[in-house]
């Protein structure tokens, strides 16, 4: 029976980055994925690095209060880590950290942006208030309808097609073993060891791998995998759409987001403009939960593009060349779940949240947890223990 220190299930950004940080520390790691490296949300997302407070946090005071003490250190750790990533990974990952704008178009949105700016300034985040004209001066081409904006100089974007494979290559170079396509079908803990039963997707052969610890990095499917270890993890799949225009002359210098509408805009180095913001596609319901390819929703696509044209009118002149979908996972409180299950020693998870922006940071902190067997301070608000009521009659 093959034996590893850590088996990681899921080869998205979280799984591959975890593999890298662990293998680098001398841990024997295997990464299993039922598809390919980067075939999940990590290779399909918008690639936005957004460090400003999210809309849902501003709306939920209780959540905000719980998060606030951790927010700044986590954000600063994320920013610092991103800045050093190209050098650390040794390849181009299409990283641009030139700044990001969050715009407001109506008095109500301005009020929300004000509130956000006050909270952010209070907790030490680097944001600057701009009037509509100042925003247009900074980013020519923004619509007259933009009445105010918050600028965060550390925001930006990175190419999701490059980041995770770069981590995977470095992890492999450090000794991590990648098994794909290989689906985990069962998880059990006996005699203090984890037995990971998996099936090679093409060959059909089943194999059992032994590990000291298991990392559930299976993204939107993390609850499905947790259940195989006899654990409940309330994480739900959501299907989102992304669109890209043809290449255009350089117009957008910054990441552009909206405080009151679902919108994200960025221009990649080739000139294409990516349009997203969290508009949903239709999840398949016939197959297993969250399985199968979601269907594009034309009504939502139109609203997404309308928001883009309203904020950056030049988009109206461009051809849309592709729209695609991806599936990501959310929790009831919208916070990520990162840590070890009290009910199942050695079973770790990192899923949910803004997993691209913070994926590298979540992975690094979780690796620290595994290496030292001590929960890093920054991970406290995200422990799966907050769902332990659900696991009273579950576990290993």
């Amino acid at each position, binding site marked *: 029976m093959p034996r590893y220190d850590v088996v990681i299930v899921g080869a998205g950004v979280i799984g591959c980055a975890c593999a890298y940080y662990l293998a680098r520390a001398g841990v024997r790691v295997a990464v299993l994925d039922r598809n390919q490296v980067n075939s999940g949300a990590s290779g399909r997302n918008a690639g936005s690095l957004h460090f400003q407070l999210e809309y849902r946090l501003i709306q939920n005071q209780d959540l905000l209060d719980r998060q606030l003490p951790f927010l700044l250190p986590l954000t600063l750790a994320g920013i610092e880590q991103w800045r050093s990533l190209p050098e650390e990974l040794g390849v181009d990952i299409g990283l641009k950290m030139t700044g990001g704008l969050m715009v407001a178009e109506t008095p109500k949105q301005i009020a929300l942006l004000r509130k956000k700016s006050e909270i952010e300034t209070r907790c030490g985040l680097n944001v600057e208030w701009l009037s509509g004209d100042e925003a247009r001066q900074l980013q020519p*081409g923004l619509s*007259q309808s933009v009445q105010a904006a918050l600028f965060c100089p550390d925001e930006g974007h990175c190419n999701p097609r490059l980041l995770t494979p770069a981590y995977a290559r470095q992890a492999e170079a450090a000794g991590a073993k990648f098994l794909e396509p290989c689906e985990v079908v069962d998880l059990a803990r006996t005699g203090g060891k984890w037995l990971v039963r998996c099936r090679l997707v093409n060959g059909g052969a089943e194999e059992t791998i032994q590990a000291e610890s298991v990392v559930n990095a299976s993204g939107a499917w993390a609850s499905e995998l947790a259940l195989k270890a006899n654990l409940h993890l309330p994480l739900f799949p959501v299907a989102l759409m992304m669109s890209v225009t043809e290449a255009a002359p350089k*117009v957008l210098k910054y990441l552009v987001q909206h405080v009151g509408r679902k919108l994200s805009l960025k221009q990649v180095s080739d000139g294409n403009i990516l349009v997203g913001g969290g508009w949903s596609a239709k999840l398949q319901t016939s197959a297993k939960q969250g399985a199968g390819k979601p269907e594009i929703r034309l009504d939502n696509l139109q609203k997404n593009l309308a928001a883009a044209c309203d904020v950056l009118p030049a988009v109206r002149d461009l051809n849309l060349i592709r729209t695609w979908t991806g599936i990501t996972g959310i929790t009831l409180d919208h916070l990520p779940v990162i840590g070890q299950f009290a009910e199942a020693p050695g079973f770790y998870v990192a899923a949910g949240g803004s997993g691209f922006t913070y994926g590298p940071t979540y992975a690094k902190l979780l690796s620290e947890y595994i290496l030292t067997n001590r929960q890093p301070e920054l991970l406290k608000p995200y422990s799966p223990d907050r769902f332990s009521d659900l696991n009273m009659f579950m576990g290993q």
Partner: protein
Amino acid sequence: MRVEKGINRPQPISITVNGVSQQVYPGETLATVLFSAGLQCFNQNRFEQRRAPLCNMGTCFECLVSVKRSDNDRPQRLRACMTDVEEGMVVEAGEGFSITPPLGDRS
């Protein structure tokens, strides 16, 4: 060049291609019409490379041409392989047509 033998076509309509009026048939795509007019290059991309249709099914975007539905319409850059001819269309295509989007200030 069109196959004539044994084919019944509807009444021709006329469109303008690079300033020259052309007789074409309803149901034909712009790609068909441009090929039959002898055009080999449909546009120049932003690297000033000459491009021509590759997939003929709407995915590669190599066949972009400039189309106005009427003389005073705003030109649109459309895929020739996915666009059916319409009476009065004004089409610009070929080496002289650069597909670089005109991203003027529309704020």
